[in-house]
């Protein structure tokens, strides 16, 4: 797979991307922003000739014990059929309970019961779309005392049982590891590398939680140095994948996102080329 970096396409940049067609590897849209017949959706359709697309859902609530919302599932399936994206993804989290939508990626206990729920929901999603989807590791602000599996072990088992891919977000690993006192490099151990289909990168903020710093995954700044270092480690271990720069709050000019994507592409190339040279020397 060629190393390639893309950007999350957000409404403030839609006109500029349509006009300038900047050189970037691929574009990602949020499924929930593209379900109505808006001028924005028509603009996205016009961009399909020039860019590979990723459809990233944020509201399927794959961790809901209540199961999936059939109506929403049908709308996402219709969008996927229409755009025929290269990748489709959502998160290891839940956002619906009792028919109410919380608009957040809420945390799951990592138990056998939760695993069965997520495997069932991901299976239903993949059946509805007729294709594999990738599941993203979330940013966590708490862990559950009753969890019997680590997050990467849960994801590995989800991949094994459902056949889904992994969308690996090093920023989310960094945020979760800090907040839950884990070592982010240990977190990477044992992940099924071949299942990884895409990387996400974004910035995070530091807030105060009763006097202790807690990292918040707000997608509102440049990727931090610590996350770049972790990304280099991820690429070294698992290889190059399509890599996305996400920015959702305080969205800067398009050029800032493109620069971050270029930095990611450069880092992938450096790590992969260096790795190739190491391998050549070892041989």
């Amino acid at each position, binding site marked *: 797979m060629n190393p390639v970096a893309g950007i999350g396409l957000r409404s403030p940049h839609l006109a500029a991307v349509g006009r300038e067609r900047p050189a970037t590897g691929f574009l990602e849209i949020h499924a*929930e*922003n593209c*379900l*109505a*017949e*808006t*001028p924005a959706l028509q603009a996205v359709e016009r961009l399909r000739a020039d860019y590979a697309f990723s459809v990233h859902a*944020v*509201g*399927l*609530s794959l961790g*809901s*014990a*209540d199961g999936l*919302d059939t*109506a*929403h599932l049908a*709308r996402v399936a219709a969008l996927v059929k229409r755009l025929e994206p290269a990748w489709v993804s959502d998160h290891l989290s*839940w*956002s*619906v*309970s*009792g*028919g*109410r*939508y*919380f*608009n*957040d990626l*809420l*945390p*799951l*206990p990592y*138990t056998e*019961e*939760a695993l069965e*729920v997520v495997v069932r929901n991901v299976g239903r999603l993949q059946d509805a779309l007729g294709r594999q989807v990738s599941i993203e590791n979330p940013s966590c*602000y*708490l*862990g*559950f*005392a*009753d*969890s019997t599996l680590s997050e990467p072990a849960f994801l590995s088992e989800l991949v094994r049982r459902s056949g889904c891919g992994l969308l690996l977000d090093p920023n989310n690993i960094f945020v979760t590891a800090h*907040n*839950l*006192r884990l070592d982010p490099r240990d977190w990477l151990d044992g992940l099924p590398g071949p299942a990884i289909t895409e990387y996400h990168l974004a910035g995070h903020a530091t*807030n105060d*939680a*009763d006097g*202790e710093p*807690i990292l*918040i995954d707000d997608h509102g700044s440049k990727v931090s140095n610590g996350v770049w270092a972790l990304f280099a480690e991820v690429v070294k271990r698992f290889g190059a994948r399509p890599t996305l720069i996400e920015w959702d709050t305080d969205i800067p000019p398009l050029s800032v996102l493109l620069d971050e994507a270029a930095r990611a592409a450069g880092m992938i190339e450096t790590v992969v080329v260096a790795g190739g040279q190491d391998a050549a020397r070892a041989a």
Partner: protein
Amino acid sequence: MPLALRDLQAAFAAHIMGADHADLVAAVAGDTIPAAARLSVYRHHVFESLGTALAATFPTVQALVGPDFFRGLARAFIGHALPAQPVLTEYGADFPAFIAGYESARDLPYLADVARLDWALNLAFHAGSGDRLQAADLLAVPAEHLPSLSIALAAGAVLISSRYPLDRIWETSQPGAASETVDLNSGASNLLVLRRPDDAAFVSLGAGEAAFMAALTAGMSLEWAAGAAFQADPAFELSTSFARLLALGAFAALQ
């Protein structure tokens, strides 16, 4: 005994909405950051992100009351009614009615009507453009059938009537508009909201035109709608007004 996942999620949901739940707090792994502080990160994000979504859907309401007042208004509404599904541009249908009953906004009696206009513009923007009625379509209808013809409004088109000068209030609330005083007693307004090719917008209708569109919306025939328009405004001219509305793309293609 750990909570079953469904119960854990119900307890988490209730906690976000403000009901403390001892079993949930006990289920969260504690350390130097207490479980309650960790849970509050989620509660904060749910209210903030939904508030941001409401501000995007109701920009004129926010411009009129300012971001601080709007945040409180949005928090009250979110506590009252969470979205039922994840498409946030479809969240807020009940916001205008909620504003009408919101005690702290009682001195802004026009605010609920402004919210109705923001919501109508949002709906029109997200409606497909659909096929519009063309003058040529009417030529194909036998003349004797025209009076009994029913014509539906185009997708997204809706009439918003208010006892306040909504168009003036809206205009002075737009980004970059010069600040101006609007006389709230300067008269009622009838605004026709429409989906245009690249956006949604509204035009101001006279009393006759408004009665005409209201009658068509109610399913009345052309003849009855014209009668309602004459009643509202004896100076109503059917051919002039109909041509204007047709050119605006206000009508759906005939079924």
